[in-house]
């Protein structure tokens, strides 16, 4: 039941020259359900933080005004509930019940009322465990639901959700959307950021598209917006429903085996798995949350020591090292042969600028400085990160960070590339570029393994799919 009013709003993060978001005039009435769209880096997450009163004055520079029910959001925080993209950083307590109760305690809710409200919030999001469950023992989807319960327990007038289903398997994502739909009171205002428009549409009645350079590009009921601007928006990176992407199937038959997994596993994270990857082939690994896909990726990438079975590399991939398994190779040799993209991009960053991040691999594998510069420049250009070359990798937007992490793995031109969720949180344009990038690599004879929940990506690129089951 809270209304939002933005007048000429802009925000520039400390340390940046460019405005993250600028010139936004927007009015959202109480009870409206808004889908906020825009290409990666357009400032969607920044805008949500502003609405939640979470941009402290000392962390950047503001233009214009934001008001929630006529109040500065930093003063009216009790009206707003927010769920961020990464559930891990928003859980505060060790026990699930305590975590939901945390907000209620802060708001001074009397002790007698706290537990009934906690139970009600947990029930509304369909949380399956008891209040005493340890928050560290939850899967990503379960954490996401708990975070949602923590926000709902405060009965916010305005609920802000930033890509709440990224990284969830399709079933888990459905559950979250159902939980949101079921948990909203009729008069709760909702602002949702989600790249996958088709799935989010049932939850909203209005679409707002941010323009990367500043201002609002389009605003109105979804059908009208997509009818009027569908084609241009799709070109600019919005996932407009009904604009399918051109698939890139393999142009040649796959070559020889590069890497073989034989009863490979790491109990209890992953049971024994058999699998082979060929040169010139794109293999997709799918399966529900917690099935062990990321573990498999790390094992194949020679980064974890197998608990059971083994990984064998062919002589074509491993050269003189083909008698030893990848996890025993020296790091520079490994980096030249197998590139890994981690599920959480931030886990992958080692240096403090985007440029150094890309240059690290080539330097370690002995490339000349001039060649390094060329490699880096080309990757920056291709993934539209040139403008951010001097930025700290940790200050990038979700999508920018993902692109950078993919680029770092490609910088050493490894024969085999293993990617964990390379496309989550990507706008349509970057997504297409990633598909093309991987397809080009594959057609040049590289082996590609992608772990993914993204059905479109599998359809567009994969030649073969392996599905892991939860044990």
């Amino acid at each position, binding site marked *: 039941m809270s209304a939002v009013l933005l007048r000429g709003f802009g925000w520039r993060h400390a*340390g940046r020259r460019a405005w993250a978001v600028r010139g936004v005039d927007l009015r959202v009435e109480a009870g409206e359900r808004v889908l906020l769209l825009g290409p990666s880096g357009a400032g969607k997450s920044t805008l949500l933080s502003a609405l939640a009163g979470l941009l402290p*004055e000392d962390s950047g520079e503001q233009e214009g005004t934001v008001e929630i029910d006529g109040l500065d959001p930093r003063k009216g925080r009790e009206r707003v509930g927010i769920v961020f993209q990464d559930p891990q950083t928003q859980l505060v307590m060790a026990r699930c019940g305590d975590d939901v109760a945390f907000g209620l305690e802060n708001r001074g809710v009397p002790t007698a009322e706290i537990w009934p409200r906690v139970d009600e919030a947990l029930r509304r999001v369909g949380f399956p465990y008891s209040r005493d469950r340890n928050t560290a023992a939850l899967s990503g989807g379960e954490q996401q639901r708990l975070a949602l319960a923590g926000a709902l327990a405060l009965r916010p007038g305005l609920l802000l959700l930033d890509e709440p289903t990224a990284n969830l398997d399709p079933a888990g994502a459905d559950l979250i959307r159902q939980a949101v739909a079921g948990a909203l009171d009729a008069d709760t205002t909702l602002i949702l950021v989600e790249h996958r428009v088709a799935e989010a549409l049932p939850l909203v009645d209005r679409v707002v598209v941010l323009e990367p350079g500043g201002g609002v590009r389009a605003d109105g009921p979804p059908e009208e917006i997509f009818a009027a601007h569908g084609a241009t928006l799709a070109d600019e990176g919005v996932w407009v429903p009904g604009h399918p992407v051109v698939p890139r199937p393999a142009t040649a038959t796959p070559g020889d085996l590069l890497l073989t997994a034989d009863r490979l596993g790491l109990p209890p994270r992953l049971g024994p798995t058999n699998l082979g990857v060929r040169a010139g082939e794109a293999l997709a690994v799918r399966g529900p949350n917690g099935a062990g896909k990321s573990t498999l990726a790390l094992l194949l990438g020679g980064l974890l020591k197998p608990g059971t079975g083994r990984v064998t590399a062919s002589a074509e991939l491993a050269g003189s090292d083909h008698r030893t398994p990848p996890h025993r190779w020296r790091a520079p040799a490994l980096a030249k042969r197998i590139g890994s993209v981690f599920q959480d991009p931030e886990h992958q960053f080692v240096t403090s600028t985007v440029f150094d991040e890309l240059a690290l691999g080539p330097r370690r594998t002995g490339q000349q400085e001039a060649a390094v510069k060329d490699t880096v420049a080309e990757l920056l250009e291709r993934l539209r990160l040139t403008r951010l070359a001097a930025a700290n990798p940790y200050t990038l937007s979700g999508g920018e960070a993902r692109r950078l992490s993919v680029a770092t793995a490609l910088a050493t031109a490894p024969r085999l590339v293993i990617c964990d969720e390379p496309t989550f949180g990507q706008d349509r344009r970057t997504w297409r570029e990633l598909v093309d990038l991987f397809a080009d690599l594959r057609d040049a004879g590289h082996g590609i393994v992608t772990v993914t929940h993204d059905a479109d990506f599998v359809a567009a690129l994969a030649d073969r799919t392996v599905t892991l089951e939860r044990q």
Partner: protein
Amino acid sequence: MDNTTNRWRTIDIVVASVIAVAFGVIFWAWGLVWSATEGAFAFFPPAQTLIYGVWLMPAVVGGLVIRKPGAALYCETVAAVVSALLGSQWAGTVIPQGIVQGIGAELAFAAFRYRSFRLPTAALAGALTGLSAALFDFFVWNVETELVNYRIPYALLTIVSATVIAGIGGWLLTRALANTGVLDRFPAGRNRALV
């Protein structure tokens, strides 16, 4: 929000705690990687004074990053409680020890009225934590040893180690942290170039 007031913001409290906790984890990992060193120290305990300063770093780093009264004391105390909770064999006794050590660094920052956070201040903070740690050990643990050949050199080496590792090392560490941009919301992290 105004950084010159003494009220701790949430971010001050949480980051101070996190610094203490992270040092707890680093000490734990040190034990895993270098378990041999512990044995070596057991066979020549005075050698411990050489790295004594490492255990005192949270106090100095906490003080330099947060820049509020009580930060040094708070960090070192939380670090002590954390190591007790993680199952340090010293358990309860590290808590008062941590408090005593934290007071040392706190006094140094207080002497400059929480206005100076430059290298000399940091070195002094290191020296004073070293001094308080040395006094604690002098009176509580080392009583039965020779004064001239052991107790006094041990105390002096502790102070030197604390000045160099906790004081100067802590200052360098804080500067390196500021360069990564994680301290952007603290006074210690201001003045970086725009990108």
